[in-house]
């Protein structure tokens, strides 16, 4: 143990050791999150639902997310229409704008954008709220009063998110398509009636259902991540802030990963 070697080690961590440690850390984190998710689902699907709590969360998660979901959708739809138009222009395919906008929004962007926005608004919000309860010993108090936090706190948030996300995504589909229509009709000289007829004729039930199924999964991911990070929040304002950040980042990445996996699955089974 020479001094030189220890100080060298402090400056440049051994990369192999670092990779090993990170891998183990990641795996153990995945394990804990999975265990947590299983416990939330067990609580959520055991019948003795706390309807008052669920309703409160539906309002908090669903209703108050409408503005942010609507605004994001209209801009995404508008930008999509513009890009498809310019791109299609190169080989004379401008007339496909309504179809591609409708398909892109319902199968991908409506759900993904809603999922991402709610990873910020809802997942971080849940993590901050649960984290604050954790560090002020309210979770301990719940346990001593014979209330299981999985039943009383986490399951209502999980159920509310799984129920409201599809509704929000449906709203986002409509507003997103409207965003594309606005740009096409008022900016790109499309005929309004033709645009709308093309959209309606082209879309199938499956396109919409695919987005809504994704939404349920995103809701589960967002609520689980928020509750998980909140419940292991460290004391203090920085601890709670960190829990909120981690849950937002984690939920966003998982939403995108889940989206890709589900898209693959749906394409493979042909819906």
């Amino acid at each position, binding site marked *: 143990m020479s001094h030189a070697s220890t100080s060298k080690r402090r400056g440049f961590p051994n990369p192999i050791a670092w990779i090993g440690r990170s891998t183990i850390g990641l795996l153990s984190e995945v394990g804990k999150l999975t265990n947590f998710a299983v416990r939330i689902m067990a609580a959520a699907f055991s019948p003795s639902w706390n309807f008052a709590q669920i309703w409160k969360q539906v309002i908090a998660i669903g209703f108050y997310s409408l503005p942010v979901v609507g605004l994001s959708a209209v801009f995404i739809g508008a930008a999509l229409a513009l890009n498809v138009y310019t791109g299609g222009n190169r080989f004379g395919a401008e007339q496909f704008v309504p179809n591609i906008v409708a398909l892109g929004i319902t199968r991908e962007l409506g759900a993904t954008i809603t999922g991402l926005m709610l990873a910020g608004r809802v997942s971080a919000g849940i993590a901050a709220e649960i984290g604050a309860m954790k560090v002020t*010993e*309210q979770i*301990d108090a719940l346990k001593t009063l*014979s209330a299981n936090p999985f039943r009383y706190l986490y399951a209502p948030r999980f159920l509310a998110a799984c129920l409201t996300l599809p509704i929000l995504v449906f709203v986002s589909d409509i507003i997103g398509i409207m965003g594309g229509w606005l740009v096409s009709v008022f900016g790109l000289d499309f005929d309004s009636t033709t645009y709308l007829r093309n959209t309606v004729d082209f879309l199938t039930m499956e396109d919409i259902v695919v987005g809504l199924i994704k939404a349920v999964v995103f809701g589960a991911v967002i609520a689980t991540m928020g509750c998980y990070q909140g419940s292991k929040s460290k004391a203090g304002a920085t601890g709670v802030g960190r829990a909120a950040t981690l849950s937002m980042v984690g939920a966003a990445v998982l939403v995108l990963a889940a989206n890709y996996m589900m898209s693959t699955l749906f394409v493979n089974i042909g819906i």
Partner: protein
Amino acid sequence: MTETTSPILQLKNVEKHFGSNRVLRDVNLDVERGSSLVILGGSGSGKSVMLKCALGLMTPTAGQILFDGVDVTHDQGKTREAMRARIGMLFQSGALFDSLTVWQNVAFRLLNAQKMNRSRAKERAIETLKKVRLGASVADLYPAELSGGMQKRVALARAIITEPDLIFFDEPTTGLDPITADAINDLILEQVNALGAATVTITHDMASARKVANEIAMLFEGEIIWRGPASQIYDSGNDYVDQFVHGRADGPIQPAI
């Protein structure tokens, strides 16, 4: 119910470490039925950690916890739930639910675990609030609208409403004026004398300790270093206890700086 004279709570060789910080090293403590035990100990000596281990909110690193003769150290299921239904806890920080009103906090166990109807539960909550010298007018306020001392009393009301067999009070009189503090002392005594509960009270307030305690124990460096009748606290013959109860800066206990 064969062993009615056995202690209601026993901690046996309990250790609790946080990484390299060995907070509890070897705690042995019996709490007798219907007795009032006061725990003394410096700030950061592990008093709150000891209560949390007893309640199963933290798992001890080593040792055993027995409630009513049953080992509950690692149990996560029915036994622990049955234990918690018989224990009241006043958290040092109050730990009131800030999304619920005062009466919903106080009546939380009645409303949730016991499924009592709301109007009956509210009546009970208001009765209990009176015992901690709070009027019915605070019942519909939220915890954030109360002063620190009032929050503490609401938390106290929540701990005693179901008349538990064992009650932990983590610094019940900290932050209260002397008159209210004494009313709280009387309330703790009432739990013991009229309702037959056992209480464990953590306090730095020597007046309160002398008034409520049958017995006093002192926690120092992770062990119970002295335990004796409350009447002996000023001539315990133990230098550590002497220094603590007289509040002297010099002595065997060195202030951590």
